[in-house]
């Protein structure tokens, strides 16, 4: 796939940061508002896919290697499982939410009833959201990138 016109490229460059911020917000606030790792990851990946469409797959492939994407994807999944296994180590059972009630990170237990949402809550759930988000971003983007790159020849010839 070749790149598109200069107008499209400029608009893409302007809109891209906003999409990134929105997607990362959905991932980070997954435990407070609707959404989570998968949904936010899909938003970020679609922002990356927009870059791919505007600038063309050959340009994008020059910037990002598919192998690095697959390694990042593995790391996302491994983080998720290791968090679950840490529940076995620090807590009592697999998937135990061992950070809740501790004062380390995301450790506050909010008071019952209607409160102002506090991001520093919910224990391992935000961390798992980050892991899933990473996996979905690179996974979806990797699929789109490879499909675009594999179909590029028809455009050139």
């Amino acid at each position, binding site marked *: 796939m070749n790149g598109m016109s200069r107008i499209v490229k400029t608009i893409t460059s302007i809109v891209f940061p906003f999409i990134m911020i929105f997607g990362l917000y959905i991932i980070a606030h997954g435990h407070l508002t609707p959404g989570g790792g998968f949904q936010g990851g899909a938003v970020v990946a679609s922002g990356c896919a927009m870059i791919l469409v505007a600038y063309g797959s050959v340009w994008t492939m020059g910037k990002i290697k598919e192998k690095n994407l697959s390694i990042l994807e*593995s*790391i996302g*999944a491994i983080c998720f*499982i290791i968090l679950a*296994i840490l529940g076995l180590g620090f807590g009592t*059972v*697999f*998937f135990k*939410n061992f950070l809740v009630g501790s004062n380390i990170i995301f450790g506050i237990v909010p008071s019952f009833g209607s409160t102002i949402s506090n991001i520093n809550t919910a224990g391992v759930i935000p961390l798992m959201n980050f892991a899933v988000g990473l996996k979905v971003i690179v996974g979806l983007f990797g699929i789109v990138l490879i499909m675009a790159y594999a179909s590029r020849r028809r455009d050139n010839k």
Partner: protein
Amino acid sequence: MNFVDFLLQHSPALIVAIPLLGAFLTPLVSRINNKVRNIFVIIILLITTSIVLLLALDVFAGNIHTYIFGAKDLTLPVVRILFEVDAMSAFMAIIGSILLLVSVIYSWSFIEENSGLDKYYTLVLLLAAGMFGMMLTGDMFNFFVFLEITSIASCALIAFWTNKGKAVEAAFKYIVISSLAALFVLFAIALLYGQYNALNIAVLGSVIQFSYLDKIALVLLVAALAMKAGIVPMHMWLPDAYGRAPASVTIILVGATQASLYGVFRVCFTLYGNTINLSPTSIGWIIVLLGVITMLIGVSMALIQSDFKRLIAFSAVAEIGFIFLGIGTGLTLFANNQMFGLIGSTAMSGGIFHIINDSLDVGLLFLVAGAVYYATKETSLDKMGGLARNMKYTTIFFIIGLLAISGIPPMNGFASKLLIYESTFQLNPILAIVAILSSIMLLAVFVKVFHSVFLGPAQPKFKDVKEVPKTMLFAMGIIASIIIIFGLFPDLVINNIVEPAVNALINYSEYIRQVIPTFTGGF
């Protein structure tokens, strides 16, 4: 608390978690070296197998294990994700782990020359996680999730040889059937959830009423899982998928098929166990009839095949018919206490013993077919001949597989088929006659194959064919030795492994009481 107790307590979670962790570590490990990656995968599966055996030893001693994810204690109503391992689950997990380990050892040389092997091993380990999840879970929705994981991983593995267009076609057929089956299962789960507000198998089993909607759910579940197991009217995907996938994948697919079979039995005996008195024997008879049709059509189609792996695939279909016949006979007599004690429990032992025998026999034959393909690059039976001169060990393994699959003593197939013949003859003589006829036809099929592949004059084009590498022979040797041991000491296997599994299926109230201690139904 020492380490073994710790492992045992957490084993149901670890059996799924370790292959899953291994699957995602494989792409990273394979950056180092191919050999390191192969050793890594084998070690991951060895650890899993040893945990499975540890768990199975404890479960066969009479303890049902439950494992609650994310919480120490169970609170009612059950909303937690729950794994529940009784002897039947442990029995299936043993089969799965044997097949996976053998497949990975076999893969070392068999697909060495292919590219994309890090993805292959990742998918194998994902398939392992899905299979073990299906076998160990105690939750219907969880079962559906693991069913989907298994389907997607199997589909990608069937299409592993993408340069051959037919493999892609087979994978497409498989994913269509699997998605359809998964949707059926999901719909059935929704029907049950809508009525009883529960997804846990034990909770559902304790409150199920056998209402009109429950009957629809039962039909959907049995139809969908039988579709995934390759029962005859829905078997068309199986010969393609088994025939086109690499042999090392086919042997794992046999295990994945058995996991779906396990689903049928779990649904019929545990989920609907409490209502079995309300339903006349119809569901049992339906399963018996499906089994009989499956046997007959499987062997008759196998007789006319000319492709080596496709032929074995059709005989695998027939073998699943035997399992359905045995366990269906048990289900037919389940409500009738006296008759069940006389015939039903024998039939159930035969059927469940045949699950492990079928996976070993068919698995060995697929590995032999893969070895012949590896050595000659030929799958058509018409073009082969005289290979016994070049590949003597492979020939011996084929003979062992041939005798075992057609139920000839002293191989393991004889023991389980004899139990099935004896008990079904007392239910209805025609069933036993059809079963014996199918078994004889299986012998005819494989004698034909033996003659056309291994016997006959030496062919000049196969002059340079050599015996396959040692790792492949070792993998086949593992299965062949298990077959012979099971054949020589069937009573040991039946008393120690099969009987606990049969009792676990029959005593569904034990399974339910593990979650709901106040449950009083059942026998």
